[in-house]
């Protein structure tokens, strides 16, 4: 029925080709076509942030991005945050250690958004909270999420 569009996307470091209908969301390409179900759909309207991925290094809500618009771009999902040998990203590690995970459904988006916040840098807790305010969490009250982010930042600085 609908025309299919060929796109080439680097997903978590791997160059992959997909043929998608014009209306396909990046979220569905990732979850269905690429089989990467770590990225979650919480609202489908760009509000909750559970589907956050990095698109060319910047955090986006993948439910609002058309897959066809991602040709030639690079996407990093929660599965791609970990480094070689499956080691977790320092922020993922910190979320585990600092109790920043409860039901876990928002967690992949939080992990990606937090990694982006660390890469971008932030001045203080208030700015960190603003950077994370695109990701809703209904369980934790955010305290331990932000504590984990601060811990990850300090540790990164410590290891430089």
């Amino acid at each position, binding site marked *: 029925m609908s025309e299919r569009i060929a796109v080439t996307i680097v997903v978590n470091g791997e160059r992959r080709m997909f043929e998608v209908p014009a209306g396909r969301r990046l979220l569905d390409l990732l*979850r269905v076509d690429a089989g*990467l*179900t*770590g*990225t*979650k*759909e*919480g*609202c*489908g*309207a760009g*509000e*909750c942030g*559970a589907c*956050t991925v990095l698109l060319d290094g*910047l*955090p986006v809500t993948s439910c609002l991005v058309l897959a066809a618009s991602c040709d030639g771009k690079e996407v990093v*999902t*929660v*599965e791609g945050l*970990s480094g070689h040998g499956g080691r*977790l990203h320092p922020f*993922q590690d910190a*979320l*585990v*250690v*600092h*109790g920043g*995970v*409860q*039901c*876990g*459904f*928002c*967690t*992949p988006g939080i*992990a990606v*958004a937090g990694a*982006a*916040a660390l890469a971008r840098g932030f001045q203080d807790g*208030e700015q*960190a*909270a*603003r*950077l*994370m*305010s*695109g*990701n*809703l*969490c*209904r*369980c*934790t*009250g*955010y*305290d*331990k*999420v*932000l504590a984990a982010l601060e811990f990850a930042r300090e540790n990164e600085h410590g290891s430089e």
Partner: protein
Amino acid sequence: MARSRAPQPGPLGGRGPRPDAAAKVAGSTRYVGDLALPGMLHAALATSPVASAWIRGIDTSAAGRLEDVAAVLTADDVPGRNSIGVIFDDQPLLVTDRVRMVGDRFAIVAARTEDAAWASARLVSADLESLPGVHDPDEAMRAGSPGVHGESNVFRTFRVARGDLGRLRSRAAVVVEAEYHIGGQEHAYLEPQGCLAVPEGRGRVTIVASCQCPFYIQQGVARVLGLPLAAVRVEQAPTGGAFGGKEDYPTEPAACAALLAWHTGRPVRLVLPRELDMQVTTKRHETVVRHRWGADRQGRLRFAEVETVMDAGAYVGLSTVVAERANVSAVGPYRVPAVDVRTHVVLTNNLFGGAFRGFGAPQVTWAAEATMDALARRLGLDPVEIRRRNLLDARHRVTCTGQRLAGPVLAREVLEQAVALSGWDGRTTPADTSGPIVRGTGVALVQYGCNLHWGGQRLDRSSAVVILQTDGSVVVRVGLTEMGQGNLVACQTIAAQALGVDPTVVEVWQPDTTTVGDSGPTVASRGAHMSGLAILDAVARLRTRLDPVAAELVGCTPDEVELAGGRAFAAGDPARGVSVAAVAAEMASRRVETIATGFARTRSRRFDPSSGQGEPYEFYAMACHVAKVSVDRELGLVHVEEVVAAHDVGTVIHRDALEGQIQGGVVQGVGWAVSERLAVDHGRLLNPNFTDYVIPTAADAPRVRIAVVESDGAGGPFGAKGIGEPSFIPVAAAVRNAVCDALGCEVRRLPMTPQVLVETLGDRHPFAWMVKSGARVPGPGDVEACRLGDSQGPEG
């Protein structure tokens, strides 16, 4: 029993990663929406867009003709009973003759793709004849109003009657009369409702569901399919938040998916789109509370009259149970010599009232704490001081239901802890009103009845299985669920503590109805409590077989065996011991049984529902919150800066999980207090999305400071009490009292949106001359104005 043994050093009360955290953070935890099976179909629902109508006919022919559609089913296709009410038989799975709420199901569809399923569902057409609905609970209560089910809309009225009201009314020096309008609340769990039904052949079915209560689903699906309970296996999927919203509701989607799987012979997955989820699932009850409370000149409460009207929506669901808790919680942790409480469950065609963290207690607490502040103001007393003069304590142990509290009564302790930590200073409203920002402080308490109310005590039991593996690792199965609150880590900690092993060798698996007995619902802050007690019972039984083997290896008598640090040793002689793993291996080689079951139940209690006198709960947890707010009195915007939360927890099981529950409860309470408004028009939710229904973000969360009061004597595992609900209940009340302190006025509507505050200020609003009178009810267009604080996107 294991509890009689001397406590050993162990993980109890410590911190440490949750067992489920690493997979969740890596994105490898598979929720229902991530599951796919060969040949799996996707389900969709055809639901009513109107709240009240007669159904002349339902036409599914066009829906069935659509490509990729495998089945379109209506009530005629139900092999068992077309009924899913959890307590009362008033709610059909699929409607036939009458629509009573928006979301009533005409038909259900299974198709090869999700898109095809929902496209097909949209083609189901129902021929409806308009029927006036009833949308105002007060109107619904009047004789002659249209009956939602044909008779009186007042489904139940609960009472608490105690003391000589006439005599004590005359002793009151001040009387406060008030009417409070308290809005509902959406759970806003991040994972929408979902389930997967798998036909197993031979008349059996497996349901994998995001849920709190696998045993409710088991019963509902068995009823709808006409199967014995044993033929329905329900496995709890990792559950992305629940808060009460996945107590009874998941039976509906599970029964839909099961019916479709039954007819097609294929696995069927159903995940609700957010908008439908928010429209049709249960909500915190919208409630009106009317008060007449009196106190003497010293501020001692003399009497309290309370009338509470809870809007149940069109089906009873759990509303009677919610109202039971609201009813006996209506006067808080205060001693009141004469009490007359009436709590009505009223049917309307509005949103479906149901379970939500606190279960009726938050609404009546909000009202009670508002009235306490009003009395204090009338008497010129500090809000903390009037509470001090009325709290239940070691000398005044009798509650409004006539229950004499056993063990430590810690209301006073949590109040003083909160006062100390918050630096409460016998506050006065700040004099500086030159600028738009004013600050205030508010206090609120709750007396939370732990576990299920007397009315549900037949369900208050729990089952566990503990299996010591041959390598010394341990499998634990319980019947109560993990939904984010931390039941897995609590059970892991309790089992590890009882067996004296490291938590990392204990694996707690998600509940499955084929592995443990019906343990009732995971609600009422009973998860860790009831599963923990069952685990301790199982460990005690296991040790009747383990200890003799260990004793032989160690060279002592079985009753001298102690377990700690991963080792079995003779009491007082840890050096001469063997590892628990070695004991496990020895048990295996001797063919000693290494699996044990455990069981726990709450103490049976007496209660007279006609007078509301007796023991509604086994024991109670007290909590006190102090909130500090700043309010922009021009814009009516509230910023909650800090909440101090002091909690009577018995014993801390896992400190990170405890803090996480309190922090999360506080932020959810802040949302209900200031921004989470359900805009409803004729039973239709106008803001079924996170754009217009605004829950707090990281930028809106207050600083949360926690004080924990531990004590001996409570009945939970190692003396623990539940924390899930007490962490939420006082929040909105404390915030409300702080807002009133800041503004110097009385707010009687919740949530306290800018519109509510500006209207409440009335003539005292800085721009009162500009504010037009008369514009009372906010419409959907101004929901955006309720947005909390400064929320910006990732690049903000």
